[in-house]
């Protein structure tokens, strides 16, 4: 064999050993797979092509001249995932701790640029010790390259970020700006700064888990969308999510052959909702019964549980579901819930995924706590998201839908194409108690028996308005249906709305409250 062929084989073998045996062993001990193992598991066998394995940094300062970093600490390439082309970048923690330097960043950024132009999804497997400080400005500007690349690709191709190791500083910024962030329970961390920096700058002692782990981001901050157990679970669940998404914004998600009859009646829904209007129930019980095969892929399950968002299929079609959760905070909409819904709705709109919106919410949250957090501008996000969206939107009103919450969860005139309601629905501007005490305030105050008059007026308002029929008379509800017919109506509506196109005058984008 020619010497030059032997040389190539030798170089490739060297690169495939990544940071060396010891570093790889440490990686395994920490409960993590290596970058190359993750790539191997993720892509369909034999379909992955690596690009840029020979890319090398060009810094000579700070001992870098002789430092060899295999593949610049990131494995980049393309291949098939469940038969569909995907671009991926997997940071290699065993090679100089997967630190982000000029050419590491360049590999990442050009991969995203290419994915954008080819119209294929991008998956980033993030596992890094942070920015490579030795490279100074070269590192910093490389962050600008990657931010620019992914932000210009945002809304053109789906981008998924997997937190499979520490991701601090700039390394947290690029994942968080992508469409969905997955975080590994014990090994995934994300933060603008880690414990060491926080200690030196602020004097606060805090461990990595508390500052940057699952509680911090899946529960409190809402930066993480899906919590996964480990690397394998992470990659499995990522593939599951990709199944719901199209390759790019010019395509619709793949429609699977329907295995669940779209006309299936669901008799268990009749009488499921408690008759006492104050009693809560778990909305998941309803969702699992109406979607194809009881399969619901929940997003942000632990953040703002008072509203549920996620993907499911109706008659084989990929659909985004938004639903109130009466079991948490009564299904009231607060700042976090509004943010959660708005971003999810806007993502579905970007990628041609129709929306099904299910109402059982008494209101937007009032009072000083939410007021001073800005419930006004957060709640506005929902209105902007739904009105701006041009994908098909089917609304189902199950029980309560009052006032601003009725509008915010998508009603006839805030973007819904079709609105169906159960007989249990109470759709009105305010609840009877509030209305009666405002409209009849004078009469009640001057009455001989105020409590009796108040109760009478409340009942009067309730009989007249707390039902779906006033809205149905105006055509704001398209039909009142039996609960058992829900699936049939939703599937039928999505059939009819399949080729919906909306024409609007040009503008850059709306000025959505942020």
């Amino acid at each position, binding site marked *: 064999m020619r010497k030059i062929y032997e040389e190539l084989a030798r170089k490739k073998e060297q690169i495939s050993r990544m940071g060396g045996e010891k570093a790889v062993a440490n990686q395994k001990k920490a409960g993590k797979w290596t970058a190359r193992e993750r790539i191997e598991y993720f892509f369909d066998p034999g379909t992955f092509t690596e690009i840029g394995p020979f890319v090398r940094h060009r810094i000579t300062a700070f001992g870098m001249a002789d430092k060899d970093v295999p593949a610049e600490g990131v494995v980049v390439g393309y291949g098939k995932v469940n038969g569909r082309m995907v671009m991926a970048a997997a940071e290699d923690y065993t090679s100089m701790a997967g630190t982000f330097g000029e050419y590491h960043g360049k590999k990442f950024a050009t991969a995203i640029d290419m994915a954008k132009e080819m119209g294929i999804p991008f998956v980033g497997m993030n596992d890094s010790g942070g920015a490579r400080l030795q490279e100074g400005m070269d590192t910093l500007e490389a962050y600008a390259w990657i931010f620019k690349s992914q932000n210009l690709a945002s809304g053109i191709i789906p981008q998924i970020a997997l937190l499979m190791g520490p991701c601090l500083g700039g390394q947290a910024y690029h994942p968080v700006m992508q469409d969905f962030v997955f975080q590994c329970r014990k090994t995934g961390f994300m933060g603008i700064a880690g414990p060491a920096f926080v200690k030196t700058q602020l004097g606060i002692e805090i461990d990595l888990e508390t500052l940057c782990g699952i509680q911090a981001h899946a529960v409190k901050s809402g930066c993480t969308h899906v919590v996964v157990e480990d690397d394998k679970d992470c990659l499995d669940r990522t593939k599951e999510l990709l199944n719901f998404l199209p390759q790019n914004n010019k395509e619709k998600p793949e429609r699977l052959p329907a295995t669940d009859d779209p006309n299936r009646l669901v008799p268990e829904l009749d009488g499921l909702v408690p008759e006492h209007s*104050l009693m809560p129930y778990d909305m998941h019980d309803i969702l699992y019964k109406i979607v194809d095969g009881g399969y619901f892929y929940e997003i942000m399950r632990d953040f703002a549980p008072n509203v549920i968002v996620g993907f499911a299929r109706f008659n084989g079609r990929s659909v985004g579901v938004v639903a109130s959760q009466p*079991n948490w905070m009564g299904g009231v909409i607060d700042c976090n819930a509004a943010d959660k819904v708005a971003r999810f709705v806007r993502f579905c709109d970007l990628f041609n995924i129709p929306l099904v919106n299910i109402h059982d919410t008494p209101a937007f*949250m009032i009072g000083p706590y939410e007021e001073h957090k800005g419930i006004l501008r957060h709640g506005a996000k929902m209105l902007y998201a739904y009105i701006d969206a041009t994908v098909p939107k089917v609304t189902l009103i199950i029980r309560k839908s009052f006032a601003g919450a009725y509008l915010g969860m998508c009603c006839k005139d805030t973007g819904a194409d079709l609105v169906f309601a159960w007989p249990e629905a109470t759709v009105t501007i305010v609840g009877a108690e509030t209305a009666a005490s405002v409209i009849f305030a004078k009469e009640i105050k001057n009455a001989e028996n105020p409590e009796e008059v108040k109760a009478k007026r409340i009942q009067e308002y309730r009989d007249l308005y707390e039902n779906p029929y006033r809205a149905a008379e105006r055509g704001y509800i398209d039909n009142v249906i039996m609960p058992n017919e829900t699936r049939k109506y939703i599937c039928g509506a999505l059939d009819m709305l399949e080729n919906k196109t909306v024409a609007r005058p040009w503008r850059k984008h709306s000025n959505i409250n942020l």
Partner: protein
Amino acid sequence: MNVNAPMVGKLVSVDVKVGDAVKKNDAVATIEAMKMFVKIYVPADGTVKEIKVTPGDVINPDTVIMVLE
């Protein structure tokens, strides 16, 4: 560990007593808020050490409903 409410409301009932063992996500009390009965869930496993409120009290996110150990 303190158990707080997620929102402002009126305490309807406390559904455990001092000494009870509770597990993460158990419902331990109910408040009425915004026309709904809202259950209060426990953030982690523990034993009820002290109950600091009585039905009828107005509860807000800063109110400690009960203390667990």
